């Protein structure tokens, strides 16, 4: 099943299948690219950022970024 990264549940794991074009370059530096395994750690309240695990490192992403990343879970 495919869903947006910010729609993932706590502790849910998935693989990145699609990233919006203009965002691709921007998040490559934190190690997020298609084919990468990502685990949801926390979703902050009040439209705050999501914290995900990428390559054993916790990385926080703004909602506007997270909803442009499509995951296969």
């Amino acid at each position, binding site marked *: 099943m495919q869903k947006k990264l910010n729609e993932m549940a706590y502790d849910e794991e998935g693989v990145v299948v699609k990233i919006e074009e203009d965002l691709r370059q921007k998040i490559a530096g934190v*190690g997020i690219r298609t084919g990468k395994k990502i685990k949801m750690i926390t979703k902050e309240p009040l439209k705050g950022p999501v914290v995900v695990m990428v390559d054993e490192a916790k990385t926080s992403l703004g909602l506007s970024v997270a909803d442009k990343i499509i995951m296969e879970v």
Partner: protein
Amino acid sequence: MRVLLMGHPNVGKSVFFNRLTGANVIESNYPGTTVDYTKGYMRQFGEDIEVIDVPGTFSLDPKDKAEEVAVKMLRDNKDAKIICVVDASKIERGLYLLLEIIEEGFPVVVALNMWDTAMDKNIQIDAPELEQILGVPVVPTVGISGEGISAVVSKLKDITPVDADAIVERMGGI
């Protein structure tokens, strides 16, 4: 000679800086401890070498003030040599910035820092193979104990820029 310490936030650049210069800048186990640059000197190869501790950045496409400082430091020091500090336990994400720096035409030594942590996590890295592919020196280091740091320094003397396209070729294309 001028040397810039570059790398992601929280990979140990400031620990390296203190080791190299004998300075005592604040280190902590949090990303974003260094938001402005610090300058120091070390005596090596019979000359005083300026060492600059650059704030951590994920890429050369800055997203906040600290990253802007980092990118500006690099752009303003076209003749500098770079020690690229990479967290060995999170090596893949560090390679992106490293390749960007190589692509800009800077001579680079790679310090695979926190080598001990990577070993503890059972992450095996073939440093000689990586060195072969990148064409730049790759040295395993442990910042807090000082292991490998003198090896990094000794490599600084002879490094030259490498061709990024040749790296892609050695990888067998993108």
